[in-house]
């Protein structure tokens, strides 16, 4: 896990800067006294999946939060269609769905309600049956009307995943998306991402299990453990 390709490798080699939708340049992240990574560059074009891997604490969550604009990078910037995401503000939010370690599911509400409200908040009117259908797709049929606090850990995760289906966003940013999911659900998520990507979407995913995924549209970014030099060098594998 600690082996890593040359520092500062640019992924956009085969694309001109303008056909990349999302682009990160020279990102560096410092948490407390630790430099988690620096000189991190990548760019995503429609129809690609970027899987971020790396040992615990290597900065995957931090990277994803930086990409969403929830955290400011120490150095570098993230650009969406050429514009810095800070300058885009809320307009950038229109383009992606983020799923973090925490599910973002209200325990008091049923899965249907959770889904409809999230959709509503992002500007989409979702009917009850539409929500139920998405929930059935993630394997929660029969549990749509159960308040989320009664759901098991994995069911709660599935309930959060349903957002991906109803959101209709171009970019999916998924942190540790397979945690707590059973084998059937893992497969379901893989198919979901595959469908999304092959339909021209983009996804950035962190997991500790490797995704079972058809190659080609598939990039891997490996964050190394902290190095003695203090600056980890992220490597990008295709």
């Amino acid at each position, binding site marked *: 896990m600690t082996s890593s390709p040359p520092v500062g490798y640019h992924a956009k080699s085969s694309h001109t800067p303008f056909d990349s939708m999302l682009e990160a340049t020279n990102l560096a992240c410092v948490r407390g006294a630790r430099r988690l990574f620096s000189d991190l560059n990548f760019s995503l074009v429609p129809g690609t999946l970027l899987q971020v891997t790396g040992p615990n604490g290597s900065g995957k969550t931090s990277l994803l939060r930086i990409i*969403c*604009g*929830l*955290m*400011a990078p120490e150095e570098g910037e993230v650009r969406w269609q050429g514009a810095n995401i800070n300058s885009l*503000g*809320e*307009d950038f*939010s*229109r383009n*992606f769905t*983020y799923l*973090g*370690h*925490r*599910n*973002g*599911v*209200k*325990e*008091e*509400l049923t899965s249907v*309600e959770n889904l409809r*409200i*999230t959709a*509503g*908040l*992002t*500007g989409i009117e979702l009917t009850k049956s539409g929500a139920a259908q998405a929930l059935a797709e993630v394997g929660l049929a029969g549990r749509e009307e159960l*308040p989320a606090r009664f759901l098991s850990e994995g069911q709660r995760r599935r309930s959060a995943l349903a957002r991906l289906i109803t959101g209709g966003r171009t970019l999916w940013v998924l942190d540790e998306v397979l945690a707590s999911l059973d084998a059937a659900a893992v497969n379901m998520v893989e198919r979901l991402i595959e469908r999304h990507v092959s339909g021209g979407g983009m996804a950035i995913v962190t997991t500790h299990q490797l995704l079972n995924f058809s190659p080609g549209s598939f990039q891997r970014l490996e964050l190394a453990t902290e190095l003695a030099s203090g600056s980890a060098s992220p490597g990008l594998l295709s």
Partner: protein
Amino acid sequence: MFRWIVARDLMLAWRRRADVLSTLFFFVIVVSLFPLGIGPETELLRSIAPGTVWVAALLASMLSLNRVFSNDYHDGTLEQLLLTPQPLYLVVVGKVLAQWLVSEVPLVLIAPLVGVQFGLSPDTLLVLFVSLLIGTPILSLIGSIGAALTLGLRGGGVLVALLVLPLYIPVLIFGAGAVDATIVGIDPMANIYLLTALLVLSLVFAPWATAAALRISLE
């Protein structure tokens, strides 16, 4: 989209209606505690009534507000709200509006009843009602700044109390002042106008400050 924010919080409140009711009861109980601690002399009670009711409203508002944000913070939904494609300012206004509707309006409505227990006269009750109606949104708005700042920051507690309470104090002074004025037979309108000015001010600036605080807390 704005209406979804309000709708969401109203729905949550409906699910937790016991909670809403208990904010109301909290208010009533806190108010009732004072006569118990102070003794039953009617004259004395009447003179502390405005202060008591207003302090109780302040506390009830602070408690319920705090809950609104920290619940969302802990289950990750606040993060999601931050990432919705609309100005965070609006999100904040929506949440505060819902909180006010759910937790403070019932309190404003019941306050005259509580006032009767303290032997206030009908026109004093009216002033109490009006002052709370104008004053409680200010409490919600200002309180939201504090609630947002305290979210992640463990050390932020005192800082926020220091920051927010001085801002609460004018509301308390003008609010209780209006009622006090009526009791002693002075025209309460000066206080009411000042309260209204505070409301306008806080409507403009507080959501903005809260939004900034939220971004900082979630970083």
